[in-house]
């Protein structure tokens, strides 16, 4: 299998960011109440993650390394991610006001989604090429989106079910997430 596609598939399924590496759990739990808003959140995160991994590569190899400024890596990545998140918030607010209202604080919180910074830093650590970095970011984003949308759909169905008293609310969500995580653990070892 060609390397980029391998990276893409393995980040979506085998090393899924949410279920295997446990990154980005805050929006996974918080923004999965409704299917529609989960789709919006997934799209916004995909946009931010993919562009952030591309931009962080450019900053790392064309600014930080030539000027010997690697010690500023984390803070400059955070600034770039924050700007991308603000940009996506402006676009969402203008085009999808209801989605913006529902997601509320969770859109600015993409900035602190550890998956975003995690992808940028992991790319540098593994010294991936530009194209590979983008594939890694896209794979992480698609994996996150898959899980978020799946979880939202399950939660929406659960709303209409009779759940025993002690399991209502956060408890059943945690159990569902745990079962999903177990299922994704089943992919472990499928990459080389």
């Amino acid at each position: 299998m060609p390397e980029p596609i391998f990276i893409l598939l393995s980040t979506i399924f085998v090393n899924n960011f949410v279920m295997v590496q446990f990154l980005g759990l805050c929006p996974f739990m918080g923004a999965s109440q409704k299917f529609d808003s989960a789709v919006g959140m997934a799209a916004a995160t995909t946009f931010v993650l993919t562009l952030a991994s591309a931009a962080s590569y450019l900053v790392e190899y064309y600014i930080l390394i030539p000027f010997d400024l690697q010690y500023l890596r984390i803070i400059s990545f955070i600034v770039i991610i924050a700007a991308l998140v603000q940009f996506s918030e402006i676009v969402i607010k203008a085009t999808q006001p209801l989605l913006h209202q529902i997601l509320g604080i969770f859109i600015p919180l993409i900035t602190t989604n550890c998956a975003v910074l995690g992808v940028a830093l992991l790319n540098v650590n593994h010294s991936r090429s530009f194209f590979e970095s983008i594939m890694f970011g896209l794979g992480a984003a698609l994996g996150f989106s898959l899980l978020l949308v799946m979880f939202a759909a399950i939660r929406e169905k659960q709303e209409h079910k009779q759940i025993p008293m002690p399991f209502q609310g956060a408890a059943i969500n945690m159990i569902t997430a745990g079962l999903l995580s177990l299922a994704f653990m089943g992919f472990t070892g499928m990459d080389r």
Partner: protein
Amino acid sequence: MMLTEILAGVLLLAVIGLVSGGVLLLSSRRWQDSGDEVTSLVNKLLPQTQCAQCGYPGCKPYAEAIVAGEAINKCPPGGDNTIRALADLLGKDFVQLDESCGTSQAPMVALIREPECIGCTLCIKACPVDAIIGAQQMMHTIIFEECTGCELCVAPCPVDCIDMISLEVHEKTEPVHLADSQPCIHCGICMEVCPQDLAPQQLLLFKNSPTLAESLRLQDCIECGLCDRVCPSKIPLTAIFQNTKQAALDQKSESAKAEYIESRFTRRESRLIASTANIHKRPSKAETASLLAGINNRQQP
């Protein structure tokens, strides 16, 4: 050496900040805020009684406040149904009605004890939907159909001749007896027998959310009762669907009524604005002369 390193770092962050700030500025110019789409969606869910029990001067201001982050449980006339609809729309959790705003009660209308009315017109000014007719020194009366039961006319009346009478609500739906039935086991037999190709087990799942059930063609149910017969869990499906249908109808008629009341309210608002704008001051002599000249010119040819 030290100084140049610090300078390089500062310069780097300044450049990144400036570039991204510039892009953000441009994009915020390009994508303007599209304004109050959400407010009108929220406003449609409110009962439009304009009663101000929530602490805002009407339903629209409360809708604006909700969008800005106010609690959704401050509307006593809407009751639990409104709170649930708002929670659905905004993705929030359902909360009990805020008792400090008032309690949810059966719909009421105001009624004037007409022999006692002194014709002061104070209640006419208070009515948010122009449901009171009358004139100075004349008896007033309330148009029964237009009254929203907001009680805003009760307080201003100097002779206390306005009563609130509660409307009799006839129970439209009978509670379904689920005592003999077992939970649904999703066997799917009901789907096979349904002459309308509906999915009764799915409809059962959405029995408390009429909008969702309608998207599964609830209104196509002909209430033939076949699904009741074949159900191994003995669930009274047809009776449940009748109730859901009724709830869907109620929802629609309520929103139609709310829309009508809102149109009356906005008409009153625009009338009030127009009447304050039309107060003329006496024209000065020069203005009179020019006005007269204009009239004379028009008459001459």
